[in-house]
């Protein structure tokens, strides 16, 4: 890009050349000044990290159904869940035709289903199948696991179970999270939340296996919402019962399923040995997660005093720890 200016000697040409230069220089100067003026910033940055915070989460519950709870004895998850869903009024009363449904499973660890550290694939298949049967337009299965997400869903068998039932696993990605501040929360403030799956659905079903948890005492349906948090969420272990309380306030699910077919009695929440498990043969479905967890505590042989998060959630009006007051239907498949 070479520009060769022709040799010019006459005065008029010189004058013209001078004017041309002045014009070009003037234009460049104006541009430079305009840019400097436009972007001039006398103040240093504040050092605060600005984040867009979500306005709030939708209510996924079905208020007209009231508080219902079913406790079904049996060892076959497909059978017990069917009976339990019938007992709370039938799935079709919760899932409307064309509803998009999220199954918030517990897929925290990359471990096989037999260890019951994650939601059982049989249960995932059955619930997804039933949802589609009553007319749900789509069922997605999501969690933000602790171990590598893709491995967790693959090894826990959840991915295969979902696929076979016609549901789809949504893995958490970098752009799946949005900052969220819980109204009335002290811990969940401007915290990344797994929002992408929540955003695209009408109903949310929380599915938790019943497990011992060394820090909080138990990992059940309330603790299950931990899987919606992103970021460095494990700093909340410094205040575990209050974070579970805040998680209980995070969203109103359509209903929760607490799988106590086999309970991880110790070494939770990972387990790792069949000897950690106890056949407790119980499936709990409840619109009230506090009641579900309160009942789960009895299967875990823990008192409510050992699990302060239950009372804390109750005090926030999330549900009733006195599950008997819900008149749960207690049934058996055998």
């Amino acid at each position, binding site marked *: 890009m070479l520009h060769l*200016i022709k040799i010019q000697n006459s005065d008029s040409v010189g004058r013209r050349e001078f004017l041309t230069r002045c014009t070009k220089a003037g234009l460049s100067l104006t541009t430079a000044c305009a840019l400097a003026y436009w972007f001039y910033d006398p103040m240093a940055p504040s050092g605060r990290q600005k984040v867009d915070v979500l306005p709030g989460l939708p209510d996924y519950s079905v208020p007209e159904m009231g508080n219902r709870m079913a406790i079904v004895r049996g060892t076959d998850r497909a059978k017990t869940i069917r009976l339990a869903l019938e007992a709370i009024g039938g799935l079709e009363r919760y899932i409307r035709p064309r509803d998009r449904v999220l199954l918030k499973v517990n897929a925290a660890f990359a471990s096989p289903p037999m260890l019951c550290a994650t939601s059982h694939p049989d249960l995932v298949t059955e619930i997804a199948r039933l949802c589609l049967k009553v007319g749900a337009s789509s069922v997605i299965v999501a969690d933000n696991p602790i171990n590598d997400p893709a491995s967790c869903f693959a090894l826990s068998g959840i991915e295969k179970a979902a696929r076979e039932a016609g549901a789809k696993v949504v893995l958490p990605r970098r752009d799946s999270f949005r900052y969220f501040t819980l109204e009335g929360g002290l811990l969940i403030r401007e915290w990344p939340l797994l929002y992408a799956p929540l955003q695209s659905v009408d109903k949310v079903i929380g599915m938790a296996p019943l497990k011992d948890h060394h820090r909080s005492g138990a990992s059940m349906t309330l603790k299950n919402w931990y899987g919606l948090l992103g970021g460095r969420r494990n700093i909340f272990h410094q205040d575990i019962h209050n974070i579970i309380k805040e998680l209980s306030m995070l969203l109103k699910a359509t209903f929760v399923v607490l799988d106590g077919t086999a309970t991880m009695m110790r070494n939770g929440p990972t387990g790792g040995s069949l000897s950690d498990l106890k056949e407790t043969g119980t499936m709990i479905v409840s619109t009230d997660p506090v009641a579900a967890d309160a009942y789960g505590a009895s299967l875990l042989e823990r008192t409510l005093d050992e699990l302060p998060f239950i009372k804390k959630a109750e005090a926030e009006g999330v549900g009733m720890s006195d599950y008997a007051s819900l008149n749960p239907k207690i049934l058996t498949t055998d």
Partner: protein
Amino acid sequence: MGIRTVRRITQGFFLLLFLWFCAASNLGEQWWQLRGWPINWFLQLDPLVGLGTLLSTHTLYSGLLWGLATVALTIILGRFFCGWLCPFGCIHQMVGVLGKRKIKIRDRIKLNRYRRSQGIKYWILVFLLSAAAGDLLTFVINTPTRRTTVFWFLVICALLFVGFKAAQKEDVQPRKAMIIVLGIALLWALLCRFADIQVLLPVTLQTGLLDPIPLLYRSVNLVILPPLDSAGFHLNPSERIYDGVWTVGLVFMTAILLNLFVPRFYCRFICPLGALFGVLDRFSIWRVQKKDMEACKDCRLCEQNCEGACQPSTQIRISECVLCLNCLDDCPHGLMGYGTRPSVTGEFLSPDVSRREFTVALIAGVISVPMIRLNGHIGPNWNPDLIRPPGALREEDFLTRCIKCGQCMRVCPTNVIQPAGLSSGIEGIWTPVLNFRVGTSGCQFNCIACGNVCPTAAIRPLSLDERLGVNDFSENGPIRIGTAFVDRNRCLPWAMDRPCIVCQENCPVSPKAITTQIQFSVIHKDNVLTAKGVDALEIQLLNGGFIPERYATGDYYLRMDGQNDESALQPIISNTEDTLAVSVSEKSVGVLSKDTAIDIVIRLQKPVVDPERCIGCGVCQHECPVKGKRAIRVSAENETRNRDHRLLL
């Protein structure tokens, strides 16, 4: 007085001014030391600092507005900055004069001939600026999704342009050209529809690596002044040490010494600031010119001292001319001038850079940033040893502003701010990092010097209130740059039953962030002592073997057999090889008798850090008497500048 003399005086003046500014950035009681002198003025005049940060942060911070003055004058006058003002240029020119000694005029002219490789500085400029231009590129690339109207307008313009060209020339096939235009538009739209360009194109400001003004500040601050401090000039009262600074020195020394081979080597081939001026001065109103062709004997004497190697004897390269104006004096016929008319032998206005070279430098610059970031050092792979000065922005923002000028390192009264090596990746080289092993203290509690000297607000200017978290800032708490961790395997009281707590004493936070747990440890565990006789308050022992007065430090106590009650401990006030004297106490006299088993215990205060109070200032680490690997060490945990690094709820 000739123009050459005026120029030399000007250059000398600015060089001295520069050196004074460097020397002034010290605490001290002299009028010429820190007194609000504009010690950053040269950095602010440097428009590459302004332009670089403008690209990387979309702002022109405060004093960097001075750069506009330089730009304006360059647009009018040409590269005056290089020839008249730049202190680095002045040094090059002086050393170059040495290099030209005893070289024949003919060879000098040869030395000053234009070389094609002078284009390299433009590649460097383009490379550095494109690495800083990620956000601008994102803005442009996102046009189809964010500014759809503009996108369609551009597509239509391109189609019209192609159609127009096709109508003019027969060898352009209109259909093929249209398909190419639409294809590019489609690919463009798809790209920004499916890729997060912002994530794809991070930003880093690396102009400071080679920008002469930050380079010179850095070199003088870190390489030239510290030996002077030590050698008795005492610009700074204490000896200054800079870790890994030989790399800075190597660059500086190389740049200086190359002048002995080719005058102004750095300016001609490397300097990105000169390159920027070379781009800006294409419209300059006044230029160096040859005034008459016929009188010119083509002796080329005008080039014997030509600093810019801009070939004034023939078709002058305006972008290379540094306005040394030596040609005006050197032409024996007085044919060279500085005026508004073009040179009679013609001008090259634009830098000698091909489109291909430009594109390669641009692409290399753009691609290198995401490639460097694959390290993950901005994200999960962050380096906890990278402790930035108080007020430093979050790392990814910090790297869009820091120009590695070393002003913070010079002004830091304690010398704790050091040039980083690779601790923040290759892009963080020579940026400020705190090293608590070095210097006279940790990062002083009541000091805000670094942020207030930083020319680009990479370390933002804190008020003392904000740093300490008082008054208006009491809700935020103090600025934390890290957290101290006690290494209980190295700490004297924790690991070796020796009293110490120097760290606790020196903790400047109030109430202290280091508290102590009082514990008693038994000495002589395997060798139970038995009283042989008790004489008033002196206990004769069967099996002593002590070093006299070893236990007389006030930390040691005597404990009788079976008594774990702390109040029953008797302070030892002196000892010989086999006696222990305790202070007056009725109880001890009452209980002690012959054959009592005795323990000597030490009362230890063991340091414990309260992470809620600790600000990471590192005074504890600096003072820790375990001088090798310190027994209390700060890491960047819980630093205020990044909420993702928080440790506590």
